[in-house]
C-alpha cells in the first residue's frame, strides 16, 4: 500500500474532510452546515479505508452518514425557522476563538511532526481476519465494555425518546387552560390532529 496513488488519495481525502468540516462550522445557513457534514464524514470514511480499517469504513458510512447525519438534519428541519440565515451565526467570541483554535490545531500538528514514533511494524491482517478478530475480542476479552456500551446506547435512546416525546410540565400547564376553554381561537393548531386521533380511538 505504498505509492503515488495512495498519497494522492490521502491528500484528496484529507482536503475534502478538512474543507467540508471548515464549511460546516463556518457557513451561515445552518442547513447547509448540516449538509456539509456529508462530505466530511465520507472523507473520514475514506481515510479509514486507507488505514485498512475496513470494518470502520463501513461503520462510519452506516452510523455517521446514515444515522447521525440524518438525525442532525431532522433536528435542523424541526427547529430551523427560528434561526434566520440573515443573522450572524457566530457569537461575540468568534475571532478570538478562531485564533485560539487555529493556534491550538497548528500547535498539535507541529508537535506531531516533531515526535519520533517507534517504527511502523507489521501490516494489518486482511479484512476478513481483522473483523473476525475484532468480533472474537468483543465477545471474549472485551465483552464487559461491549455490553456496557450497548447498555449505554439503549438507555440513551430510551431517554432520548422520553425526552423528545414528553411535553414539558411548564408548557403543559401554561397551555392547558386555554385549551380547555375553547379550541377555535387557539393560536397553535399543530396539536389539534393529535387530540383528534386520541379522541377517535
Amino acid at each position, binding site marked *: 500500500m505504498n505509492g503515488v496513488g495512495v498519497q494522492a488519495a490521502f491528500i484528496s481525502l484529507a482536503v475534502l474532510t478538512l474543507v467540508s468540516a471548515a464549511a460546516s*462550522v463556518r457557513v451561515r445557513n445552518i442547513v447547509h452546515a448540516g449538509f456539509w457534514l456529508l462530505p466530511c464524514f465520507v472523507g473520514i470514511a475514506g481515510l479509514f479505508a486507507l488505514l485498512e480499517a475496513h470494518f470502520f469504513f463501513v461503520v462510519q458510512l452506516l452510523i455517521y452518514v446514515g444515522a447521525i447525519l440524518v438525525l442532525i438534519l431532522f433536528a435542523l428541519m424541526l427547529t430551523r425557522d427560528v434561526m434566520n440565515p440573515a443573522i450572524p451565526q457566530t457569537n461575540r467570541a468568534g475571532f478570538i476563538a478562531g485564533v485560539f483554535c487555529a493556534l*491550538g490545531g497548528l500547535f498539535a500538528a507541529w508537535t506531531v511532526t516533531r515526535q519520533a514514533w517507534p517504527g511502523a511494524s507489521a501490516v494489518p491482517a486482511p479484512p476478513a481476519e481483522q473483523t473476525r478478530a475484532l468480533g472474537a*475480542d468483543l465477545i471474549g476479552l472485551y465483552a464487559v465494555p461491549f455490553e456496557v456500551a450497548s447498555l449505554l446506547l439503549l438507555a440513551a435512546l430510551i431517554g432520548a425518546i422520553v425526552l423528545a416525546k414528553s411535553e414539558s410540565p411548564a408548557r403543559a400547564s401554561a397551555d392547558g387552560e386555554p385549551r380547555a376553554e375553547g379550541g377555535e381561537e387557539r393560536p397553535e393548531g399543530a396539536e389539534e390532529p393529535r387530540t383528534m386521533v386520541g379522541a377517535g380511538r
Partner: protein
Amino acid sequence: MGLNGYLIVAALLFGLGVYGVLTRRNAIAVLIGIELMLNAANLNFLAFWRFLAPSAMEAQVFVLIGITVAAAEAAVGLAVILNVYRDIGSIEVEQASELRG
C-alpha cells in the same frame, strides 16, 4: 503518507470542531462541532492502530465504543435541544440561560 499525515489531519479536524463549539450560536451547530471532534479522536485511534500496533485489537474496540457513545450523545443531545426549542422557542445557546445563577 505515514502516521504524521493522519495525525495532522486529525489535529486540524479537532481544531475545527472546537471552533464550531466555541463560536456557534445554534445548539445543533454546537453538536456538529462535537461530532467533528469525536471523528478526529477516532481517526487518531485508527491511525495509531494502523502504524504502531496493527495486530492488537484494542484500538478498534475503543473506536467502536467511541462511535457508540457518539451516537448516544447525538440522540440525547438532539432530544434535549428539541425540548429546549419547545420550551423557549429558540435553540440559541445564549438564550437557554434559565439555570444561570
